[in-house]
């Protein structure tokens, strides 16, 4: 399997405070990996480091063999490292369709065309229709996002990420804020993602984690505690310890 994302010795200090230290992990094509850890474990910092929102203090990040450690965030996006947001960040007054049109046009760098007509850009309508269908949003295509149900907004987040044709997709709590009864729809959508994509999901809801992930990586206090299959992680006493506190000491 081709290694798509390789993170080596990634560390971040804020002054004397070490929020990420020496994290090493790889994602290969087709991986479905969940990143878990208690609050304050440094999950968000890790995502920000990988996506280029903040620069690392040490370590390297490679995307599809290319060193991207020093690249700005937008450049990483263009290379295929895409994230979705924990809180849906969408353009409130724009319709669902317009979101996807914009994402596809931006991906192909066809946005600096002041005299073209969006409705007539070759291939755009078909691709947008495909994305809408993949996420079950076809009937909502002309709805302004501000008046869309929250679960649908989450689906649109995933559709937007998908429109960027990612190699590596990082989903930051894709079901956050969605009622438990509806989270299945989000998971179904995630199941339909292209198989050759490497997906890393940050999630609190262990139910979702076990349904989604083939492998799990556990972070605690900025360090990589352990990684393995779901079965291995459940059995690992260290994981219980960080989640349940230090009661294990009583043994």
């Amino acid at each position, binding site marked *: 399997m081709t290694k798509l994302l390789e993170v080596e010795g990634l560390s971040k200090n804020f002054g004397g405070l070490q929020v990420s230290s020496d994290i090493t992990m790889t994602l290969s094509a087709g991986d479905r990996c969940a990143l878990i850890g208690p609050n304050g474990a440094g999950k968000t910092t890790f995502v920000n480091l990988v996506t280029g929102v903040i620069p690392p203090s040490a370590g390297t990040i490679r995307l599809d063999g290319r060193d991207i450690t020093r690249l700005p965030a937008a450049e990483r996006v263009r290379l295929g490292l895409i994230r979705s947001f924990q809180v849906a960040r969408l*353009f409130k007054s724009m319709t669902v369709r317009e979101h996807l049109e914009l994402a596809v046009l931006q991906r192909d760098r066809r946005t600096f065309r002041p*005299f073209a007509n969006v409705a007539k850009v070759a291939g755009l309508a078909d691709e947008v229709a495909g994305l809408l269908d993949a996420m079950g949003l076809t009937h909502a295509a002309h709805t302004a996002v501000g008046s869309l149900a929250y679960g649908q907004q989450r689906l649109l987040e995933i559709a937007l990420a998908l429109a960027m044709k990612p190699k590596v997709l990082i989903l930051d709590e894709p079901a956050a804020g969605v009622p438990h009864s509806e989270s299945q729809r989000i998971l179904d959508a995630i199941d339909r993602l292209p198989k050759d994509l490497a997906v890393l999901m940050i999630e609190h809801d262990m139910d979702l984690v076990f349904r989604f992930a083939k492998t799990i990586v556990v972070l605690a206090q900025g360090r990589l505690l352990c990684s393995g299959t779901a079965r291995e992680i459940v059995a690992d006493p260290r994981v219980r310890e960080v989640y349940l506190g230090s009661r294990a000491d009583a043994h």
Partner: protein
Amino acid sequence: MTSVAERDGKAGAVTRPAPLGRRRDLGWIGIPLVALAGLAAYWLLPDDLALLTRIAASALFVLSLDLVLGYGGIATLGQAAMFGTGAYAAGIVAVNWNNDPFVMLAAGGLAGGLIALATGALILHARGLTLLMLTIAVGQIVQEVANKARDWTGGSDGLSGIDPAPVLGLFRFDMFGRTSYLFALAVLVAGLLVARRIVRSPFGLACRGVKEDPLRISAIGGSPKSYLVALYGVAGVFAGVAGGLTAVTSGIVGLDSAGFPWSAEALVMLVLGGTGRLYGAVIGTAAFMGIHHILAASDPFHWMGFIGLFLIGIVLFLPGGIASGLERLGGLLRRPAGQGEGGA
């Protein structure tokens, strides 16, 4: 494949595919309406052609402001910098080299676009109040440069002696201002058409995205600042052409064309008409300057007060501007007729 068709069919049957993606203008009728109203005014108000000409040229300027504010979210009180630069460029070209009206407009647009690109690249990293201050500063600098360059601009006396050649070599600028008005109206309508094209383009879509959430644009791999600078430049061309148009139709360019009050007045007219619609700029300009004209003639002492009351009334009762009121009215009229626009 069949399941897709089924699902679509079902969704279409259950929920009416209402085009909630609201039209940001009155569809195809907005611009023809402006042209028709403009021509009607030509026949109905033959004694007020000078005023109507000023309205048309000013509306093009306010339109340029709508492009940056309504479609890019750039708060500016310095749009007159581009207008003034365009007006002076057109005037200087006419006095020294070529007095063809189209050459003058091109010179104005070019100068306005270049100054907008140059200053935009410098100041558009800022947002909000900081940006507002910087745009004012740019306006002041342009005005001061025009003041100091007396040999070219006439300084505080203004640049006079602009005598444009007949339009297309056929239509002389007559003393009644008929040619002036029709020329200004034609340029305004052309400007509206081009602006409409731009806001519906991929570029316009991206600019609306930047207006709503610049960080989200970065997250899909775009550069918000480059969109804003490009939009500022495009709007600068519009403002410059408007300045050039004023030079063509009035024959004089003064320092006030780049001044802060003119920028602020444009903002008032835009908010009055309604932002983010294009034709709102025309409505706002016509309403403001028309009422200004009527009140100033009928009550020379208190007209400013009435203008103030009028503005307060609009802001209180029609927060989206006059255009939003018209749209609501249009919506009320259309709904009982039961006309469903094709959703997909």
